[in-house]
């Protein structure tokens, strides 16, 4: 079974982002970039499926600037077999990415597509659901467990108030939640091996996809800062503050 995984290059989760002074966005120059953490979980899950003998080939895809090649190399080092970069300097919004991925899926015909549930930069949480819609495939979002059967995937999903299990017919789209797995550390020999794997570069035009953004960002600002309060000596003083100053209990 062929599995396709998509990965996004984002500002590393440890970086404290700063809003640009001119209010056009956040500072991304000279900032550490990494693979979106949920996508790392997606790659890891695909590799585990291959190690378990269920998946036969893992194709990893990224859409964005040339530097996304590094992100793809990381995915190859985790264990993906080959990579595709849809290269563009244009701003890509989730609908456009879903359309690019749809075009790739039509070329590659995977039985399963795994994506992170959300990217930690735009926090949109849309691409997987949109891809499923465009392909007319079922979706299983926020997965914490994936069990593949012959014609379906049984997926446990993290939902408000607990867990839900759904069965989706293959081919299907699955998006990952945090507890699906713990991604492995990439080893040096695997990084070396990854350099020899195939990385194909395509342009959106070649796929016949119009990626023009539908949303215009008018401004980006820092949220109002919460002022640090006071330190109190002990539990007794705390209760006094909560009862008499804040009046919340």
């Amino acid at each position, binding site marked *: 079974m062929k599995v396709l995984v998509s990965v996004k290059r984002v500002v590393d989760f440890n970086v404290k982002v700063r809003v640009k002074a001119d209010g056009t966005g956040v500072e991304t120059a000279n900032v550490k970039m990494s693979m979106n953490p949920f996508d790392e979980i997606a790659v890891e899950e695909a590799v585990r499926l291959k190690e378990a003998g269920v998946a036969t080939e893992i194709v990893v895809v990224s859409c964005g600037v040339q530097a996304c090649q590094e992100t793809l190399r990381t995915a190859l080092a985790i264990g993906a077999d080959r990579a595709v970069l849809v290269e563009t300097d244009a701003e890509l919004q989730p609908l456009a990415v879903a359309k690019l991925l749809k075009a790739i899926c039509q070329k590659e015909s995977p039985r399963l597509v795994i994506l992170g549930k959300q990217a930690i930069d735009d926090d949109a949480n849309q691409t997987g659901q949109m891809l499923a819609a465009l392909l007319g495939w079922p979706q299983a979002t926020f997965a914490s467990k994936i069990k593949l059967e012959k014609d379906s995937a049984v997926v446990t999903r993290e939902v408000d108030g607990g867990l839900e299990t759904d069965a989706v017919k293959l081919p299907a789209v699955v998006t990952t939640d945090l507890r699906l797995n713990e991604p492995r550390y990439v080893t040096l020999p695997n990084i070396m091996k990854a350099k020899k794997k195939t990385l194909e570069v395509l342009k959106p035009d070649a796929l016949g996809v119009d990626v023009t953004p539908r949303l215009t960002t008018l401004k980006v600002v820092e949220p109002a800062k919460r002022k640090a309060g*006071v330190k109190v000596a002990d539990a007794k003083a705390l209760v006094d503050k909560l009862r008499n100053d804040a009046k919340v209990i």
Partner: protein
Amino acid sequence: MAVLVVAEHDNESVRKATLNAVAAAQKLRSDIHVLIAGHEAGAAAKAAAQITGVAKVLHADAPQLRDFLAENVAAVVVSVAKNYSHLLAPSTSNGKNVMPRVAALLDVQQISDIVAVEGADTFVRPIYAGNALATVKSRDPIKVITVRTTAFDAVAAAGGNASVERLAAPADSGLSSFVGREVSKSERPELTAAKIIVSGGRGMASGENFTKVLEPLADRLGAAMGASRAAVDAGFVPNDWQVGQTGKIVAPDLYVAVGISGAIQHLAGMKDSRVIVAINKDEEAPIFQVADYGVVGDLFQIVPTLVEELKK
């Protein structure tokens, strides 16, 4: 043109998140319709008709809608979408699951998790875990939106008198099926609706300490219990307790953070709480930068004393 709110409900009643989404819809100054897509959901439709400010309830009822599978619910929403200028849903797990599917079927770029309405086509939404707020303008003919519930005060659940119209549901997609649900059973208030939340972090050191040390405090305060991602990753408590960028977004009257250092992604989920209390042994912990009241010290001594003080 009217706007449509896709309700969050359990076939019997309407969940509070719907009331927050209706509040956001009111900012658009159009007639508000509410969609109840479910099975044997007459009671939920009736409840939706009582919501203040709702002009009409659309009620689609079919067995394949019972468990809110995205494929089937999205088909219902799409079947009526052309009648509306805006389609809104609360950012619950159902809303987040269904709405992007709707948006893609309509060839629309969804606007996720809005916190303010600036105009009919302009909205504010948090990005980078709430470290920045983006104002975005949509040029799609229909706006598909999910609403951050904590940013809009709920409208009253009663006082309205809307008509209920039956809607035919498209056939079952046959693509997916519901297998089962494990709902965490708890006597406590639900995390996203609680007035007081007591949350634990890595500093709790074990799941057992959540029960032994933190639970008495939550009991005393009538609070819901939450956790940081670190505590969830360490396996102390289940994932649905997680407060943060990728967990639940909460804004209670009182948030008590115990043994939580205050990673950016945790703060993203709770910094809009009215009063924040932090108890942590590290006085440099970032949580103290957002806390109204901080106590520096050993939580295993402070929390039990706090419970005793609260009894007085």
